[in-house]
């Protein structure tokens, strides 16, 4: 018996030793070459980020970056609660970053170099590093409007002058300001919003809206298939269609700009490296490359020094569009965003 016990135990020790031997170097290797997990939107966006942001960062610091997708706000909340981090850094839109701060989900940037000596005005907002922006623009079928389609949101609402089917995103905080602009509210008076007026304005266009899109792909498909004559969609999706040779026109006038921010997940063990990444991601040359490839607009004005005029013309934040576009202002929304969204969803269903 003793002999058998001894063999069994020695086998355990031996096995354990092998396990430890196998595991340790691997463990050390991960520690030595540090890894940062960054949440990405996948596809073109991810390729642009890897080439222009991740690889230069790794070359400079030796810190490896692994992309993680998809982007999920719910996951950010989940991992701060559970302490198990799938990603250390992610991007958030304006509405989300405010919710993230209210729920205490992101690291404070107060004592970082980024906050103390910002590379440009507005580089830090709500503990996020202002990176890039996209816009909701008007796009239309050239064949449907040979003499030119709607040039602003009031035109988009004008079913007499521009008959045809409409399509917009099923997303209250983006559509309500547009509805006010269509109703004649000047860009600097949009916020805080007159929510009731926005809904009254929406009532006028509702019968022409055949479908409310929910996925970027879907919005593109509707336009490509000729299902919709006139649509409010993201500028990048429109540019992709135009680049593919689709007979579609993009209108930059009254483009609605929405900013995206890099944030660090609160409590991540990689906080220091994550902060280094945030600082590096705002550098003009890298940001310019990222925006060029991902079809976004840089928020760092210096990035335009690295972009040709033709490239800048494809970006909603270009200086040339400054007086034509307007920005979201979620801090000054004019109501509880969730309650307004609920109201919007029910309004669509009636």
């Amino acid at each position, binding site marked *: 018996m003793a002999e058998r016990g001894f063999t069994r135990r020695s086998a355990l020790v031996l096995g354990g030793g092998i396990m430890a031997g196998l595991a340790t170097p691997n463990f050390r290797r991960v520690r030595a070459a540090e890894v940062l997990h960054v949440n990405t939107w996948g596809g073109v966006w991810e390729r642009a980020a890897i080439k222009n942001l991740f690889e230069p960062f790794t070359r400079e610091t030796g810190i490896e970056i692994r992309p993680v997708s998809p982007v999920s706000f*719910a996951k950010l909340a989940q991992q701060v609660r559970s302490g198990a981090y799938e990603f250390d850094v992610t991007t958030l839109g304006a509405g989300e970053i405010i919710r993230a701060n209210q729920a205490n989900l992101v690291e404070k940037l107060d004592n970082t170099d980024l906050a103390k000596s910002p590379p440009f005005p507005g580089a830090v907002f709500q503990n996020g590093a202002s990176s890039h922006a996209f816009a909701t623009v008007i796009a239309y079928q050239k064949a449907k409007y040979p003499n030119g389609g709607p040039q602003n949101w009031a035109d988009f609402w004008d079913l007499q002058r521009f008959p045809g*089917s409409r399509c917009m995103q*099923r997303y209250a905080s983006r559509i309500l300001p547009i509805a006010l602009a269509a109703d004649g509210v000047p860009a600097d008076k949009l916020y805080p919003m007159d929510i009731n007026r926005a809904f009254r304005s929406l009532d006028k266009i509702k019968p022409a*809206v*055949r*479908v*409310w899109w*929910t996925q970027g792909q*879907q919005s593109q498909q509707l336009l490509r*298939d*000729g*299902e919709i004559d006139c649509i409010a969609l993201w500028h990048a999706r429109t540019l992709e269609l135009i680049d593919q040779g689709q007979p579609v026109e993009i209108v930059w006038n009254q483009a609605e700009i929405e900013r995206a921010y890099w944030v660090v997940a609160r409590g991540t063990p990689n906080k220091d490296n994550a902060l280094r990444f945030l600082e590096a991601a705002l550098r003009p040359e890298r940001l310019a490359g990222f925006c060029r490839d991902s079809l976004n607009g840089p928020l760092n004005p210096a990035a335009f020094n690295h972009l040709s005029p033709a490239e800048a013309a494809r970006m909603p934040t270009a200086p040339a569009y400054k007086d034509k576009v307007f920005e979201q202002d979620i801090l000054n929304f004019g109501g509880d965003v*969730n309650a307004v*969204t*609920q109201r919007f*969803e*029910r309004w*669509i*269903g*009636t």
Partner: protein
Amino acid sequence: MSATAAATGESSLKSWLLLAPLLVFLAAFFVVPLAQVVVMSVTEPEFGFGHYAEIVTDGFHLRVLMETFVTALVVSLCCLLLGFPLAYAMAAAPASLAAAMMVVVTMSFWTSFLVRTYAWMVLLGNRGPIAQFAEWLGFAAPELLFTRFSSTIAMTHILLPYMVLSLYGVLKRIEPALPRSAASLGATPAAVIRHVVLPLAAPGIANGLTLVFVLCLGFYVTPILLGSPREQMVAGVIGQQVEEFLAFGEASAMAVVLLASTLIVLGLYHRRFGLDRLWG
């Protein structure tokens, strides 16, 4: 205790042991999460039956439920109207032709319903064959997509195999001599169907209607992609509550109501026909 009783006792123990992995799996991955959903519906964000009260009183939820039920009913009836002649023809056809028809029905059954949904988008779209045919005839292309019509037709297509298979099962078992003797006694073909075939096929019809109705209650993707924004099915509203508002309590309450409605339908079926017959 006799030897046989002991043997049965042992074999039933064995069969329980064989069932155990499945039962543990179902308990862990179905019963427990489902119970959590029920608990969440009365505890998120705080304890109470507020979500249920809201569903009953606020008008919106009841309307969505009503619309879901009406849609499911319409789809079930459409499936019956289209499925009965097909199943009847299959049951009457020679074996090789019946097999070929069966392959067609089951092929559409095996194709992912997402693929079938997108196929309908192509067929009903502005540049699809139907619109082009209408234009060729000189009509303006009708707007077919994003209407109640488009979602109903797609759901009918997706659920039709369930109806055909349950009808085929009973129609195949009808003694061929019965309709023949009715005809030889002077019944018209319509009278044969009405007085002989339909009564004998009644269990299959009830099966098919129940299956299609219950499956249709939970439809999610098809109405969202093809339907009009004005008609919403319960499953779509639940998805939205979770994804957009993180309102787990409200979504859970809706899910429980949907589950309860499904159980009521199945309960009615069980009292009349017996649940064990539902799958033929």
